[in-house]
């Protein structure tokens, strides 16, 4: 039975290779862009709080509401709902390009929240000590907030990446391919259970790998 399972790689091996590549590209680009955006807004969500270093109720509240709205939409709905915006940004709403935009719109707010909670854990006393030393706000953000929160930021990014891998499996809907697409088209629609099993195994491995890597880096960064 196991031999029979391995036989199907002869037929589907290339398909898996391409699906992995597609998932890798989608997740890689979406993650890079979402991290930059998410980290920026995560910092804004923290420093504009009433008792923080750059208090601004309006900015905080507006950002807070926008993120909550985006976070309340399931990915599959978000992807369809923003098709016009996707077209306007990348010129198309299908294929890998067409999938990256909704993946970013979906993941960046999530990462912003994850970064926010990581940054909020930074000891207020240390920030105060830096203010007392005459540090500028920029110095406090780079030398205290982002630096002290590094392990928590990495763990947050790990969670965000795993969420992103999950969302990318739905990108088949807009013809972007990827592992999820193969699982649906071959494993489900053409009733090939061995393909479904392989896709599941590959997704599980990817998540395991990301999580282990994240935990390892965070541990190395933590000096306590």
């Amino acid at each position, binding site marked *: 039975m196991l031999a029979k399972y391995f036989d199907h790689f002869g037929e589907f091996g290339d398909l898996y290779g391409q699906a992995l590549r597609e998932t890798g590209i989608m997740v890689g680009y979406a993650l890079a862009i979402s991290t930059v955006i998410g980290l920026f807004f995560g910092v804004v969500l923290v420093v504009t709080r009433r008792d923080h270093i750059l208090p601004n109720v309006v900015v905080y509240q507006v950002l807070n509401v926008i993120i909550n709205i985006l976070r309340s939409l399931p990915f599959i709905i978000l992807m369809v709902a923003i098709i016009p915006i996707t077209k306007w940004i990348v010129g198309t709403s299908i294929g890998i390009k067409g999938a990256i935009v909704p993946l970013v719109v979906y993941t960046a707010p999530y990462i912003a929240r994850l970064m926010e909670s990581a940054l909020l854990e930074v000891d207020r*006393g240390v920030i105060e000590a830096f203010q007392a030393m*005459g540090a500028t706000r920029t*110095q406090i953000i780079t030398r205290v907030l982002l*630096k002290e929160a590094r392990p928590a930021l990495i763990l947050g990014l790990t969670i965000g990446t795993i969420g992103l891998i999950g969302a990318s499996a739905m990108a088949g809907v807009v013809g972007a391919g990827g592992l999820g697409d193969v699982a649906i088209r071959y494993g489900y629609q053409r009733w090939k259970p061995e393909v479904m099993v392989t896709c599941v195994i590959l997704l599980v491995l990817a998540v395991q790998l990301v999580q282990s890597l994240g935990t390892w880096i965070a541990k190395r960064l933590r*000096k306590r």
Partner: protein
Amino acid sequence: MIRLDNVSKTFYQGNKKIEAVKNATLQVNKGEIFGVIGFSGAGKSTLIRCINFLERPTEGTVSINGVNLAGLNGAQLRATRRRIGMIFQNFNLLSSDTVFDNIATPLYLVNTPKKEIVRKVRELLNLVGLQEKESVYPAQLSGGQKQRVAIARALASDPEILLCDEATSALDPQTTDSILDLLLEINKKLNITIVLITHEMHVIKKICDRVAVMENGEVVEQGKVLDIFSNPQKPITRNFIKSIFDVNLPEPLLKKLESQQDPGKIFRISFIGDHVGEPVLAELVTKFSLHPSILYGNITQIKDTTFGTLIIQVTGSDEAIKAGMAYLEERELRIEVIPHAG
């Protein structure tokens, strides 16, 4: 050097008004160690944070070397803050930096040349006695060592003033003493003015020159530590002094004295500095034919000065007692009558 004039700080929590500091006026002179003592919530932290404008006073003015902080722009305020080091109860070190980098922080902030940083940090490591710990992370240090790192960091920008917010409150008594010795050394060697706040009278007694007592946001009493110890005015001040030496006689003893045939009078005599060790009791006997008996005696050190307290019961004629005490007062001893029980 530091002047607070009618400083008040009011916080609003919802519509609740919290007057953390009320109308505080005080002056700290160059080179002295100034203590602020008070119970938890008295407003000490808020007061000390007004000195470097971590907290902006709601009313009143704070000036450093004659410059009103309220008139400074952002860059000027940061420059002033660099002249004022600060240490905290919780040390507030960067956990992700080594001891070396923590101490160098104020220098990194203004892009000091690397060579200069190494020289300065080594010098400070020496001063605080942590030469061997330069590449260790704070998590691997004891509380006392962390506070030493914090002190070194505060000194890296060559400040004129050092603010200490409960710097020893998280430490055991022995470590507290070693940190206080270090502060004293810094004060003397580097001529840095120190303002420290605490809720322990022991800290005040050991290193402070002058002290302010705070209660419910107000400075209720201030003056030289010796004067405050020998002649406290407010009940809260007496309480703080009692916390390190209890000069009250036990009630049963007072009752017993009173029931004696001749209860005489009870006096508390305070000796300061050079007067300690003078044979005053013998003189009461020989010059005034009085009969003093000792009920209580204590001698202690208040910073550089020896301070003694003696409680005696004196019997003899009223006139002789009066004359005897007048004589002691002339000798600049502080005399206080303690009423009998009842």
